[in-house]
Each structure stands twice: as structure tokens, then as C-alpha cells.
């Protein structure tokens, strides 16, 4: 939608034309997205009987609570690791020359083009007890027994961090690029050590990037389905898979849609909170 301020005043009467142009897309969005979404919301308070019984399960069902806690824990850990690794990569990218930057950007974006399914199976092959990682570590004599790297929570974390890393890197890089490097130089000239200049000048300036990247990664991590299902060995149940079980197997659609609704509301709440501290539009390059 063109915002009012961007449009010269003389063109205002033609706004109707723009509306006509976006009508098909808007109609499709309403029909294929908003209507089913409304159906999900309605199901969550009507199945099996009208009322808020499904939402009460958030407070009474240990099964639901356990899944929510697992989801939050894994999303938080993924966010932490992705930020840590992403920060280093973004920092290096900022310091590199332009051809190095292009190469690094390419390497960061490469995983984006590969299906999550394929990547999950690749991790299983790499990290399993007979995979190259364990075989290599044993050949060097670093370990005697293969490490349990996959089909458990460790495997889920590795897989999820891998998927989330580009989001963290790109958001942080966009933020770091806007920082005036002369500020660090100024701090150094005033007698700060390298570490002090980083800690007291550069790091605080990247705070918006960290908050933005953290929120983005955290929100996306909450909804993971394929990665935990494959890399978790059936023992790491996150909310998306829990919803799938309710819809496909136990046929408790009220419970499934309630969790989907809860997930959506949490994401919206997180975005709202983010918008209070940051200019969200600028953060995502809009």
C-alpha cells in the first residue's frame, strides 16, 4: 500500500486505481489466509464444546506445559547460539573488503536455498555415531566412544541454529553497517584498549541489531516442526509437532487450534514489544 506521504498531492484522486490493482492479491489473502485463520480461532473456542476449556489446558495439562517449556527452552538456546555465532560472522563481514564480503554473503545465503528437509537428513548423516564427525574425532583419538550429537536435543539445536544463522547474520550486519567506524577509532585515540573500545562503544551501538535479530530468531524458532521431528529422535516434542499430533492422530482439534492460536498471539505480542523499543520497519529494511 503506498503511504500517503510518499504520494504527491496532485495524484491523490487516483488512489482508487491502486486499490483496484491490489484487489486480486488482497482478495486472495483474505480468502486463503484470513478466512482459514478465523476458522482456527473459532475452532479453538468451540471444539469439542463452546467455551474456554481448551485455553484452561494451558494451566492444567502437564503435557501441554511440558511441550511449551521445551519449545521456549529450545527457542531461547537457539537464539543465544545463533546470536553469538551470527555476531562474529557479521563483525567479520563488516571488516572485510567488498569481494570478501560478497563471498561471505554468498556462503551465508547458500543454506537458504536448500530445503530444511534435506538439511535435516544431511545433519543426521553427518552427526550420527558412524558419521564423519564422530569418525574424525575418534580417528584423532579425541574421543573413544561416539558422541551423541543427533536424535536428541543437541541435534535439534545444531539443526535449528544452522537454519536460523542467516537471519541473525543479515539482521546484525545491516545494523553494524550503519555504525560509524570512526567512533571506535575515536575511543582508541582517547586511550581505550581494543577490548574497551569494543565493549563500551561498538557493542552498545549494536544493541538494536541484537534485540532485533534475537526477536526475529526467537519468533521463527517457536514454530519449528521438521527439524525437531527428524533430529530429535522422537524425544524432543515442540509445539508445532504437538499441534500436528492433535490434528492428525488424536483428532483433538480444539486443543490443536488452541495451541496454534496461543503461538500466534505470543508471536504478535513479541512483535508488539519489539516495536516499542525499535523501529521495526527500518530493522527489516522496509
Amino acid at each position, binding site marked *: 500500500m503506498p503511504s500517503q506521504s510518499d504520494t504527491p498531492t496532485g495524484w491523490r484522486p487516483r488512489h482508487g486505481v491502486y486499490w483496484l490493482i491490489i484487489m486480486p492479491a488482497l482478495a486472495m489473502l483474505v480468502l486463503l489466509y484470513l478466512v482459514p485463520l478465523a476458522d482456527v480461532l473459532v475452532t479453538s473456542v468451540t471444539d469439542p464444546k463452546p467455551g474456554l476449556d481448551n485455553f484452561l489446558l494451558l494451566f492444567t495439562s502437564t503435557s501441554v506445559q511440558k511441550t511449551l517449556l*521445551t519449545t521456549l527452552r529450545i527457542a531461547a538456546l537457539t537464539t543465544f547460539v545463533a546470536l553469538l555465532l551470527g555476531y562474529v560472522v557479521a563483525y567479520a563481514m563488516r571488516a572485510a573488503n567488498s569481494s570478501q564480503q560478497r563471498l561471505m554473503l554468498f556462503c551465508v545465503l547458500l543454506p537458504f536455498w536448500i530445503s530444511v528437509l534435506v538439511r535435516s537428513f544431511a545433519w*543426521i548423516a553427518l552427526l550420527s555415531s558412524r558419521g564423519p564427525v564422530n569418525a574424525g574425532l575418534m580417528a584423532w583419538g579425541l574421543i573413544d566412544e561416539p558422541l551423541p550429537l543427533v536424535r536428541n536435543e543437541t541435534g535439534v539445536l545444531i539443526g535449528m541454529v544452522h537454519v536460523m544463522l542467516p537471519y541473525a547474520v543479515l539482521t546484525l550486519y545491516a545494523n553494524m553497517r550503519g555504525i560509524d567506524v570512526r567512533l571506535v577509532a575515536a575511543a582508541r585515540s582517547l586511550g581505550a584498549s581494543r577490548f574497551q573500545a569494543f565493549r563500551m562503544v561498538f557493542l552498545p551501538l549494536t544493541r538494536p541489531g541484537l534485540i532485533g535479530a534475537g526477536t526475529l530468531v526467537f519468533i521463527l524458532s517457536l514454530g519449528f516442526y521438521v527439524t525437531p521431528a*527428524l533430529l530429535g529422535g*522422537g*524425544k524432543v516434542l515442540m509445539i508445532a509437532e504437538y499441534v500436528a499430533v492433535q490434528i*492428525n*492422530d488424536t483428532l483433538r482439534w480444539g486443543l490443536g487450534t488452541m495451541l496454534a492460536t496461543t503461538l500466534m498471539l505470543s508471536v504478535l505480542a513479541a512483535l508488539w514489544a519489539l516495536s516499542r523499543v525499535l523501529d521495526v520497519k527500518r530493522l527489516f529494511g522496509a
Partner: protein
Amino acid sequence: MSDMSDRQGDIERFVQNTEGKVYSRRVFFGMCAALGVAPVAARLSPAMADQKELVLVNWGGDAVRGMKASFVDPYVKKFPDRKVAIDGTGPSTSRIRLMVQSGKVTWDIMDRNLHTALEIGPEGMLEKIDYSVVDKSKVRPEHAVEWGIGNYLYAMVLTYNTKKWGGEVPTSWKDVWDFKKFPGKRAFRREPDAVLEAALMADGVPFDKIYPIDMKRALDMHKKMKEHAIYYTVIADGQNAFRNGEVHLGQLLNTRAWPLKQDTKGLYDWTWNEGVSWGACWMVPKGAQGGKAIWDFIAMTQDPQAQAELLKSNGYGPVNPEASKFLDADWNKVNPGAAENYAKMLPGGIEWYAKNATAARQQLIDALSS
């Protein structure tokens, strides 16, 4: 068999359906499945208007070719004016419900299992089997119920690596729970049927005391197991975990253990001992249009020779005990329905699962999740 209604299956089905060896109708069904179109949309197919054609719904893959050769071809030979189309998209419970409740029943015969027949039959989803045409005496008593008649057998069996423990191999679930004697990763399916039974057998419960299942006792056993095991949701994934050496022992479907043994030239093998056998069955959706032709077809599939042929094509065990006579000793070794193999196994408790499957599945998932 909901166990095959996995994503892997969808993909296999779609590949199979688009290889060009099939008639257009199956391509259509396959595309419906791949696109996630609701089954009621299938009534748009013009071929649906053909009243003389029965629609048999099974789980795709080799079963389409196998059932066509063993069951459909002899039937069409006997009744040249009739036709049978096989739709491999899988009669899952939610799809059956959707079709029967919509009132547009386009399926005639469904390949599912006995405990589902007992679960959804009383809800009015299924026609009662016409035992004046279908012969109850051709199956064991536990394989004929009011809404379903056994069509083949499958079993969840103890599968193991033959070389890992210097000539020793596990022969019972007790061995599988013995982490010192048989170190190595285990594999179980993340579904209650047979997984709970194995735990109880390992804890010393005799066959006749397994049902009704003591959930707490079974789940406690799995809480001890879970750090040593993976719990697969997609059966092909479980089979793969064995093949690439990730797991060394555990529970696998007999129709997967057999190709696993062949693929690995005997590195993996299985035992029928303490396996859990299940009857797949024919079910007919309430309001099916096929009439008497349905029962004629089902009666013909009870032929022991046809069932013996089906075993050879894709490992589905004959439910008619007579079929063993049409199989030589080598084939009977892989036949879960052969008398000596069947006697070693626990017949799965279909009445218990008809009532408790949903709750048991949820409790198992909860117990396994970190």
C-alpha cells in the same frame, strides 16, 4: 494401517503415480494427495460416474501393484463386466470420517486394520461385513469382527544386528532392555501399538496378562529405555536408521525387516519370537455404492493362493492359514501367518486399542518427550 500414512509415503505414492505406468485416474488421485486436496474433491473425476467400478483404497507403493496382480486381476477375470480401480492415497480415519459425513461416498473397499474397524464401526462409519458372502472360517477367529475382515497380517518384530555382539544375538525384549549385555542404540516406533507390549514382555509379563495394558508399568520401562533409543515416526526412517548403522536393535515392521535383511546381506535379521502380530482388514465405508460386488470381491481375496502371491510381491502375510501350503519352506520363513511363526507372537489386542489408542498415544508421547 495408519503406520504408513506418512509424508515419505505421500512422496513415494506421488512418484509411483506419475511414472506413466498407471491409468490417468490414479494420477488424479495421486495429485489430489500431493496437493492436499480433500478426498471429497475426488468426485469431480468423471470416472466416478461409472457405477460398475469398485474403488479400493490402500496405502500405495508396492501394494498397488501387488494387490492388482493378486486380488484385482483374478476378480476381473471372473467378472469381465466389472472393474476395480486402486487408489493408493490411504484411508486414514480423518478421511473416512470426512467422506461418510459429507454423504458423498466414492470409496468401496478400504485397506485398514481391525482395531480401527472396532473403533469407528460403532460410530456408524462402516458397513457391517456381509458374512453370508464373506467366509469367516477362512481366517483365525481373532481376524473377523463385525465391521472388518482380515486381509493380511503384519507384525512388529525384534530386529537386530547379527555381528555386533560376537555371535550373541538378542532373542527377547528382555535382551533389548539389557543395556550391558547388548550395548548400542535401539529403535522403536513412536506409536503405542506393540511398543507398549514389548516393554511389558521385557518386564516379565506373560502373553495372556498383557491386556489390559498397565500404562504406568509400560511407560516406566520406556523411561528407562529412552536415553538408549530413537523413537521414529516415519517407518522408512526407522528402517534407514538400521541400514546406515545408527541403531543395532529394536522393533521394526516385518515388511521392512525383510528388505533390510536382503539389502545388508544378512547383517540384520529378525526373530518372530515375542513379535506382535496385527490383522490388516477390509472395511467398507457406510453408504458405499458398490453393493454386492464389494462382498464378491472381498470373498475372492480370501483365496489362499492369491494371498500367497501377495506375500511374494510385497511381504504382506497371508491371513488365511491355508496359504502356507502354497509356499515353500523358504517363503514360510518370512510368512507371519505360517503356523510356527504365528504361534511365537502375541496377537495384538484390537479390543483394547479400539478403546484406548488415542489416550495411549498421547501418554506415550508425553513420557518420551524431554
